[in-house]
């Protein structure tokens, strides 16, 4: 039971075309280095899941033509505004989008984490979202005395969870700190691929101070080192988001040409800055 330590490209090679891939949001240890490696490897037809929303990494993948469909509660670059390649793909009709709402994504992953076929969730009744989601069902709460319609959300099991960790040990345990949605994603997915800022000696699971922020190697298929692997996004208290870079991306990616130039400069070209 050993978790291999891969190169970033070897890790990217583990993502099959057509895979159903869960990605954390921009503020939660999103593996952007791995996303760039995926674009370089030319992955195709991904079905992305935003947990619970999508941002910069998803917009990059959409723009690079790697995404066939997307399930998410929102796509945004935050302060930098709308996600330009998502917006363009929606206009072009080239993206199959399934709208959700944040807690429904969490609930679907928690159902998968527990191995139950569904979980209930309040709200949504009377929205225009509910009729769009033929995979959800409304039942009458069997514990209520009066009629009480409630939505059941089926479990969602991603083929892969892709996450970036602050550190990993040689056993394959990875530390994500308080961003426990990453643990939920890893638990729910069939397999988890991890990039980590650095490899630490010892066993993270045996350190009672660090263990609460650890995802056990039980869930991890492979790890690659990626220094500043969330850049231009931020990583906990280790580094902040590169707002100027994201702003520049948001402007450039408004046009196809601008996006291609960005890709050439920051994704396809060798980058001395990051360990890619």
């Amino acid at each position: 039971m050993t978790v291999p330590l891969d190169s970033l490209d070897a890790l990217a090679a583990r993502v099959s075309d057509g895979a159903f891939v869960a990605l954390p949001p921009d503020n939660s240890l999103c593996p952007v280095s791995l996303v760039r490696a995926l674009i370089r490897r030319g992955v195709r037809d991904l079905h992305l899941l935003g947990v619970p929303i999508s941002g910069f990494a998803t917009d990059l993948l959409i723009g690079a033509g790697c995404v066939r469909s997307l399930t998410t509660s929102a796509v945004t670059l935050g302060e930098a505004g709308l996600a330009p390649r998502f917006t363009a793909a929606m206009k072009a009709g080239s993206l199959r989008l399934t709208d959700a709402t944040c807690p429904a994504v969490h609930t679907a992953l928690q159902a998968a984490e527990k191995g139950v076929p569904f979980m209930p969730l309040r709200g949504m009744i009377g929205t225009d979202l509910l009729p769009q989601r033929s995979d959800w069902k409304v039942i009458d709460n069997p514990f209520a005395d009066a009629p009480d319609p409630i939505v059941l959300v089926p479990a969602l099991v991603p083929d892969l969870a892709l996450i970036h960790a602050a550190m990993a040990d040689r056993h394959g345990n990875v530390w994500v700190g308080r961003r426990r949605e990453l643990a939920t994603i890893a638990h729910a997915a069939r397999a988890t691929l991890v990039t980590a800022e650095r490899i630490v000696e010892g066993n993270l699971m045996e350190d009672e101070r660090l263990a609460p922020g650890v995802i056990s190697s039980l869930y991890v298929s492979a790890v690659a080192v990626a220094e500043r692997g969330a850049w231009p996004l931020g990583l906990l208290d280790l580094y902040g988001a590169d707002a100027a870079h994201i702003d520049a991306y948001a402007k450039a990616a408004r046009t196809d040409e601008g996006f291609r130039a960005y890709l050439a400069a920051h994704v396809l070209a060798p980058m001395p800055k990051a360990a890619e």
Partner: protein
Amino acid sequence: MTVAREELLIAAIADLIAAPHPHPVRHAAVGAASPIPAHAVMLARHRGHDVRLSLLQQRVGNPFTEGARELFDLAGQGRIDLFFLGGVQIDGQANINLIGTGTPAGSSARLPGNFGSAFMAFTVPRVILFREEHSPRVLVPTVDYVSAPGVSPPGVFRRGSPQALVTGRCVFTFDAARARFALASLHPGETRESVREATGFDYDEPDAVPETRGPSESDRAALAGPIRAALEDTYPQFCARVFGARAA
């Protein structure tokens, strides 16, 4: 010194938080894109209201340790008393649309998405709708897509309804029983007519419509001082714009 538009809106929302209401606000949650609501909660606290503010997207010292789902779990339990929602469209029944306009919705312009609105509107007992742009384009008779309904029929689980809608021109309060807004106050420079003209939906207009009460001098001092200090990390651009460059 002139009161900035943002300060006026902050004060107006702080007034709504403290307004008499069957459900008191002890815990408010605010997202990354909402500096004015966050400042309003802090101002209400400065004025003596015992309210806890959870800033959802705080990178360091985030209020949650159960991951992103904790906010929604808290709301599901009824442990969030106040939340803020906006929309590319808001209609006269307080329905909101976060998906976009056109048929199908989003076809003419696609917005980010529903976020948590389709859940929070049901589980949080007090919602304040906030949208600075006040135009017939935003305030429409009927939204093209219901991300969250303003009211629900009996038998549908729901802890409350929108309390009010705050815009760049005025404050509307919302009567859930009648599913209808009423003009509550006019921001300086606005008239009943200017608001009526800029609003795409019908609403009630009482005989007396006061001017929106702005911030007091003490409010302004708190906003520029301790409140700025507490929120500057989360909203650096907003703070610099509204309260000026910081004395180093």
